[in-house]
């Protein structure tokens, strides 16, 4: 029964979104005297999402079989511990990305990119095939190359940070 829960989660998330959108659009004032103001479409969409996701919630609770028949789900169910491992890796990558973006502001594009690239490459590769020196070299070359190419040829002023 585990795989039915996915659609249940989805519909609950959409239900929450619809309620949020609707309550936020209650405070919108009409700035023009036309028939519908800035609050009209948000309300309509919120109601649409609410109705559809309520229906979807009922369907996916009542009828878990009808929604999932493909075999990929079956496979995921078998390796349950694998699922949590997968999620840890995604979480790490996501965190790494967020840290990287914060770092760009503080230490500049080049240093932040070198750090991010190296760590991410290590994270992506299996233990036996890790070659940190090579990764570090590739990271330095690419970061410096991208920085100067975009700065000088395409005029994208990437933050220089403490190196600038």
């Amino acid at each position, binding site marked *: 029964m585990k795989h039915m829960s*996915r659609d249940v989660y989805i519909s609950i998330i959409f239900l929450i979104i619809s309620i949020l959108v609707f309550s936020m659009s209650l405070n919108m004032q009409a*700035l*023009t005297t036309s028939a519908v103001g800035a609050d009209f479409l*948000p309300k309509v969409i919120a109601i649409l999402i609410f109705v559809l996701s309520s229906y979807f919630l009922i369907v996916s609770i009542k009828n878990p079989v009808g929604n999932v028949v493909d075999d990929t789900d079956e496979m995921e169910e078998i390796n349950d511990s694998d699922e949590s491992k997968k999620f840890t890796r995604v979480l790490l990558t996501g965190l790494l990305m967020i840290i990287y973006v914060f770092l760009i502001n503080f230490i500049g594009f080049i240093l932040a990119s070198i750090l991010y690239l190296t760590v991410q490459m290590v994270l*992506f590769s299996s233990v036996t095939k890790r070659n940190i020196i090579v990764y570090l070299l590739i990271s330095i070359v690419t970061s410096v190359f991208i920085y100067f190419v975009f700065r000088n040829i*395409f005029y*994208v002023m990437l933050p220089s940070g403490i190196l600038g």
Partner: protein
Amino acid sequence: MFELLLDGINSVFTFKIILLIVAGVFLGLVFGSIPGLTATMAIAICLPITYGMDSVAGMSLLMGLYIGGVSGGLIPAILLKLPGTPSSIATTFDGYPMAQKGEAGKAFTYAITASFFGGLISIIALMLIAPPLGRVALQFGPFEFFAIVVFSLTLISSLSGDSIIKGILAAALGIVFGMVGSAPIDAFPRFTFGFDSLDAGFDLLPVLIGLFAVSEILITAEQKVKNNKKKKMNKIQYRVKLKEFLSQKWNFLRSTLMGLGIGILPGIGGGTANIIAYATAKNVSKTPEEFGKGHPGGVVASESSNNAAIGGALVPLISLGIPGDTVTAMLLGGLVLHGLQPGPMLIQNHGDVVYGIFAALIIANVLMALFLFLGMRVFVKLLSIPQQILLPIIFILCVVGAFGVNNRIFDVGSLIFFGIIGYFMIKGKVPLTPLVLGFILGPILETNLRRGLMLSEGSFVPFLTEPIAAVFLLLTVFSIGLKLFMNYRKKVSG
């Protein structure tokens, strides 16, 4: 029209632009041939490069990427049984068995030729259909545009996934994201949560790049990256007898037309076209049992239809400003970036750019075939570039792209935000395309709705009584009904 096309060709025939198309096609082929990288990603990464270019040059580069990206998928599909892009899934069915029989070269010849002519016919069709359609669309007012947008959104929602509810929910979510920032007409700030940076709403590019490139990187992050097996290539024997070739002409023509038609429909493109064309080719074939065992017809059907979908998908983009799939959504981003307002006015006001795009497509199509025939060895070598090195670099380029739009870190933040949303949507099997299209079309929908209501002084009746608007709204109801009916039938028979 020919004069305009000649002007277009003239404007493209400068050393710089030809060089850009060459680079675009090459890079597109590289992205297309490496599984996990797609045409959408290639365009996402190259958009920031076009900031500094004039619009014809920028769009030419993007067209090269588009054609290369769709075509490159055939290489790993035939050699490794891995479709490089969703557009080449059906190519693996017969291309790989052909390669196993030692006929890889033959399969390449069929695939490349089918891609070339499929692409060419669809580009010609695009040139014939888009300008007149654009002129018709010029007559459209807010009622008509509102109806067309509603129709496109429902069609996209019902076509792009298994569940129409998930599709519509995704589209609605896209509209919600599109509403962030100043409302159209009265500029009332909505859903900004107090962030000044959100006053202008989310920028299109971080949304697109996040949803389609960053989410893919996150998906790949689930596994330790597997490397593609190295593939030794012996001498390739490209030769195919002309007679064998010509025996595929009806199959080719049918698949091309199907690809073109599917491309024009919003919501689906080459990814769907190749599978449908393959299935049809197999069904009407006198020897359906040979399909799947290395029948050239399968390769021809798949590869002609996916390239034909290119021209098709560009029709609604150029004539109506409505993107039909993810790649054309990217291209729309490119147009907006260059200050060109997509829509029926595009051909009127910027005919030079539009015909430049047509000319670039034709040149890119020729280059694609040339590169594939002459440079096959290079592309095959590229297949073994380790992905653990490639993907992080691609993420950096995504960051550069998002940053470059407004030179602010805020957009990089929204890039990651949408990357995470995209990841969870892929995991939950909620289709991404409706979300993007909702995001792009939502503001158009609202503007036309409110403008229409101003014109009609608050009455909703004209939306239903203006003939063209009424037809599109009827089609909307019809398309939902059809999908529901088909789902019902599937349930009963299954």
